[in-house]
C-alpha cells in the first residue's frame, strides 16, 4: 500500500543519497568548467579514495570522518600531480586526447586496485553505521544525515575558495577566457592542475562520507560516476549550483524509481533522463552555453 509516510521516507533517503552524488558531481563539474573535458578517471579515483578510507580505518584506526581531513589534501596532491605531470603533458592540448588519457588512467587505477585487493567487496563496521534517529514519522540514518550536512559545508568551502582566494579568481578567469588569463600572467597549467586537485579532493571527501554505510571494491566508484555524469549534464556542465540541485533531484528520482519499479530499472530512469537532457537540452537546466 502506498502511504505518504513511506513516500516521504523515500524522498528523504533520496535527498541524502543525492547529496553525496552532488559532491561527486561537484568535482566533475568543476573540472569540466575549467578544462572543458569530462574526467573519465573520476570513478576510478573514487574507488581509490574508498580504499584509502577503508585502509585508514583498518590499519590506522582512523574514523572515516577524521580521515577525510587527511585524505582530502592527499587526494588534492594526487589530482594536482596527475593533471600536471600526466594528463596535461600527454594530451598535447587536444580535448579528445585528454578524454582518452583520463580513460586510460581510469582503466589503470581500477585494475591496479583489482590487482592489489582482488574483486572482493569489503565493508567496515562502525558503532554508528546503522544508528538511526527517530523523527516521529520516520527513521533516518545518522551517518547519512552527517554526510548530507557535510556536503553543504564542502560546497560552501568550495564557493569561498572560488570567491575569495587569488587561486579561485585565477580558476574563474581561466574558465572564462583561457588565452586572456594566460596573457594576464596566470600559469594555466598550474591552474588546470589546481582545479583537477580540487575536483579529486571532492571525491576523497565523498568517499569518507560513503564508507560508513557503503561497501568498497575496485569498481565501486563507477556506479556513482555514471550518475554524476547525469547530474553534471542535467545541472549544466561547469555549473556548481546546477550540480548540487541536480544531485538532489537525481537522488530522489533514483529512490522513487527504485521504489516503484525496482532497483535496476530505477537506474534506467536516470540514464533516460541523461540521454534526454543530452539530446534536447545539452546546456543543462542551469548551464549558460555548451
Amino acid at each position: 500500500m502506498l502511504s505518504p509516510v513511506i513516500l516521504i521516507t523515500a524522498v528523504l533517503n533520496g535527498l541524502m543519497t543525492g547529496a553525496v552524488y552532488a559532491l561527486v558531481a561537484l568535482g566533475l563539474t568543476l573540472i569540466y568548467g575549467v578544462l572543458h573535458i569530462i574526467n573519465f578517471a573520476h570513478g576510478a579515483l573514487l574507488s581509490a579514495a574508498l580504499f584509502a578510507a577503508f585502509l585508514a580505518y583498518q590499519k590506522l584506526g582512523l574514523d572515516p570522518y577524521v580521515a577525510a581531513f587527511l585524505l582530502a589534501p592527499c587526494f588534492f596532491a594526487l589530482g594536482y600531480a596527475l593533471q600536471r605531470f600526466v594528463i596535461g603533458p600527454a594530451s598535447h592540448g587536444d580535448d579528445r586526447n585528454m578524454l582518452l588519457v583520463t580513460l586510460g588512467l581510469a582503466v589503470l587505477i581500477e585494475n591496479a586496485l583489482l590487482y592489489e585487493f582482488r574483486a572482493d567487496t569489503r565493508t567496515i563496521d562502525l558503532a554508528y553505521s546503522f544508528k538511526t534517529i527517530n523523527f516521529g514519522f520516520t527513521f533516518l540514518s545518522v551517518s547519512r544525515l552527517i554526510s548530507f550536512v557535510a556536503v553543504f559545508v564542502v560546497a560552501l568551502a568550495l564557493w569561498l575558495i572560488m570567491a575569495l582566494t587569488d587561486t579561485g579568481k585565477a580558476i574563474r578567469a581561466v574558465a572564462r577566457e583561457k588565452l586572456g588569463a594566460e596573457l594576464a600572467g596566470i600559469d594555466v597549467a598550474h591552474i588546470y592542475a589546481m582545479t583537477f586537485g580540487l575536483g579529486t579532493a571532492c571525491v576523497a571527501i565523498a568517499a569518507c562520507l560513503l564508507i560508513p554505510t557503503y561497501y568498497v571494491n575496485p569498481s565501486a566508484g563507477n556506479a556513482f560516476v555514471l550518475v554524476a555524469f547525469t547530474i553534471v549534464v542535467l545541472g549544466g556542465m561547469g555549473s556548481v549550483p546546477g550540480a548540487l540541485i541536480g544531485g538532489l533531484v537525481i537522488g530522489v528520482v533514483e529512490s522513487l524509481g527504485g521504489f516503484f519499479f525496482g532497483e535496476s530499472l530505477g537506474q534506467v530512469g536516470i540514464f533516460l533522463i541523461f540521454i534526454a537532457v543530452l539530446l534536447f537540452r545539452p546546456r543543462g537546466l542551469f548551464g549558460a552555453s555548451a
Partner: protein
Amino acid sequence: MRGVLAIAVVIAVLAVVPLLVHSNVVLNFLVVTLMIALAGQGWNIIGGYGGQYSFGHAAFFGTGAYVTAILQVHYGVNAWIGFLAGIVAGGAVGGIIGGLAFRAGLRSSYFALVTLAFAEVLRILASVAPITGAGVGLLVKLDLRAQSFQFQSRAVFYYVVLALVAIGLLIAQWLEHSRFGTWLIAVRENEDAAMALGVDATAVKLSAMVISAAITAAAGCFYVQYFLFIDSSIAYGTWISIEALLTPIIGGVGTVFGALVGALVVKSLGEGAKLVTGDVPGLDLMIYGVMLILVIAFAPRGLVGTLTDLRAGLTRRFGFPRKTAEVVRG
C-alpha cells in the same frame, strides 16, 4: 591499388598461420585477437576517420551478439541468417544513436558521454529482460555443422574472422580513396569548414556511424558463434567499448591497418603479461591503460602512423627524388 595489394599480402600471410601452427591455444588467441581487431576497425571508421570518439561501441557489439543468439535460441532461425540479421540490427542501432546524437549536434565529451549512456542503458535492460536470458545469459545449442555456423576446428573459425577482418580493411581502404571518405575526413578536420564547402556533415557522420556499428556488430555476432554464450556484461560491458577504441588508437587512429596492428600488439602484451605473472586479474588491463597513455603522449598517431611519419622523415632527409617525381607526373 597499392593499398589493396598491401591488404592482400597481409591477409595472405595471416592465412598461412593455421597451416603452420596447430596449437589450439595459439589459434584461440589469434581468433580472439582478430575478433577484437574487427570490433576496433568498426570504431576506427567513425572514431578514426570521422573524429567522433565513441565510448560505447559495446552497444553495437552487444546488439549483434544478442540478435544472433536470440534468433537462434528463441526462434530457431538459421545461424547464418541470424549472423546477417545481427549485423543489420547493429547498424540500425548505430543509425538510431548516431541520428539522435549528430542531429543534437553533440561533439567531443558530449558524444563520448551519450554513446556510453546508450551502452549502459542497453546493458541494464539486457540484464533484466526475459528475452535476453536476464542475469543468466543465453546458451546457443551445440550443433557442430557448417550450416549452423559451428565448426569442430578452430582453423575454420580463424578463416571466417580473417575474412571479416579483410572486409573491414577493404572498407577502410575504400574510405581513403572515395569521395565519401574525403568528406568524412574533412568533417573530422574542420566540421564548419566542410559544411561551408557543401558537405552535409550530419549525413556523412551518420552514414559512417552505421558502417562503423555494423562492423563492430559483426564482431559481436562472431563472438556468439565462437563461444556459444552471451550475457549482458559480456555483450554490453565496458570491456568491449574500451578494447574497440584502444586497438585503433594504439595501432594508428584513422589508418587502414591501425586496428589490426593495435589488436595484435595489445593482445600479445596482455597474454605475455599473463604468462609471466600467472593469471592475475587486472594485470593485462593495467598494461592497456598504461599503453593508452604512453601512445597518446609519445605517438599520438599510433604505431602505424608513427612508422609512416618516420619513413616520410627518412625519405625527406636522405632524399629519394623518385617519389616526388611520381607526384609531379601524376
